[in-house]
């Protein structure tokens, strides 16, 4: 087994992940407490409230974060919550904007009135701190170059005090900065959707009640889709995820057994 060509493992994994995508064979999706909390934080918003969405990921994390972003946006527009998008990764912001335009069109939402995209500004710590004083100091214009004071949605927005909830979509350390600079200093209410890799690092913030909720990885996205009743890639991907995990567990068990018996034979 030591000489097994690793490409055979890749091929088996490809087959095991592809088949459940084509013929959906998976169990029921049960939302967990962190995801329910995040959902409830958005659900608690009233029509006309402001949801700030931060796009802190790029294409490398899109399969995990795009489904949850779409779900949160759908929930917000469904409730007539106003959405302000910004991002700390210039290269990822177009993905967020694409999802924003796509979901806004589903609800006939109007740019500048129901939603706006403030774009990207460099230096996230400086941006986060400055937003606590006056948002227009940093975001004087939206991503199109329109002065934000000319947009109905942002004409009276000044600081975190005007933002009812911040929902960040994170694939890196920006979540730490949001919590340490916007939550700790300005008491900004916030929830996060993170990649599965980042989720273990984010759980301490949830445990300490610094954040309202946490949606972790594709599994979290599937749970959020279940909560809003709009299945998407998260839900579709769960059977493949389950079978993929079972295969990897099988490989780990086989690898350890192989190691054990080889060592015994040598000993």
């Amino acid at each position, binding site marked *: 087994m030591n000489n097994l060509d690793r490409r055979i493992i890749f091929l088996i994994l490809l087959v095991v992940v592809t088949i459940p995508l084509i013929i959906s064979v998976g169990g029921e999706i049960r939302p967990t407490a962190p995801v329910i909390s995040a959902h409830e934080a958005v659900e608690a918003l009233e029509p006309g409230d402001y949801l700030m969405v931060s796009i802190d990921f790029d294409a490398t994390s899109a399969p995990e974060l795009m489904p949850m972003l779409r779900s949160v946006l759908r929930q917000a527009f469904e409730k007539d919550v106003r959405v302000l998008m910004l991002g700390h990764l210039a290269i990822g912001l177009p993905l967020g904007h694409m999802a924003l335009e796509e979901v806004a069109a589903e609800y006939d939402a109007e740019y500048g009135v129901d939603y706006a995209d403030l774009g990207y500004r460099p230096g996230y710590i400086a941006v986060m701190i400055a937003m606590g004083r006056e948002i227009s100091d940093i975001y004087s214009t939206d991503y199109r170059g329109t002065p934000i004071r000319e947009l109905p949605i942002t004409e009276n927005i000044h600081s975190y005090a005007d933002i009812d909830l911040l929902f960040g979509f994170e694939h890196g350390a920006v979540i730490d900065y949001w919590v*340490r600079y916007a939550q700790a200093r300005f008491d900004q209410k916030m929830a996060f959707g993170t990649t*599965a890799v980042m989720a273990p690092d984010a759980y301490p913030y949830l445990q300490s009640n610094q954040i309202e909720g946490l949606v972790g990885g594709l599994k979290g996205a599937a749970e959020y889709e279940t909560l809003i009743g709009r299945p998407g890639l998260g839900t579709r991907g769960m059977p493949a995820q389950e079978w993929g995990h079972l295969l990897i567990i099988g490989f780990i068990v086989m690898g350890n057994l192989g190691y054990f018996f080889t060592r015994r034979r040598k000993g």
Partner: protein
Amino acid sequence: MGTGTIIGTWLAGFLTLAILSFLYKDNPFYKLAEHLYVGVSAGYWLIYVAFFDVYPMLWQGFQNETGLERWILLVPGALGVIMLSRWFPRIAWLSRWPIAFTVGMGAGLGITANIQGYVVPQIGATLLPVTGWNLVSLNNVILVVGVVTTLLYFYFSKPHKGVLGWTAKIGIVFIMISFGASFGYTLMARLSLLIGRLDFLLADLLHIIR
């Protein structure tokens, strides 16, 4: 579906397969896709920062602002230009000034933020009560024992013998569980990326699934 979308989908499909072909072995298609990704990312970043940040915030800002607000913009502008001195070995030392500014500002902001936003809230969240024989209390005890024994594992001023040795060993168990959780989540993330690409190939490109 517009022609642009169709071309974009096929291009994305080709690039996805080109990247995945690396799993078989390194090849020119993989190299092409990799270089395209790096080049497009760098180009996009440069254009975005230049036209959406430097131009409106520095150039237009300097033209539109008055008084101190205007002249203060020369400071970040000059620091930015000095940073470029790294390209010229003779004057490369000048780039230390903007770096020193950035490091100093980052350290100053970071110390207070870490204490206010991480250390204090996390210590507070670890001081948990035991309210009787129930699952919440058990959970709280496990959490406190986990934090204390893990911290003791990283105490190296005394040999790990006796009580310290046992507690450090318990700390290792918690550290290993943490590594296991991180590994499990990482695996889940990598599989999700594969699922995302396969879903794109099967749904958007080949229309096998909806």
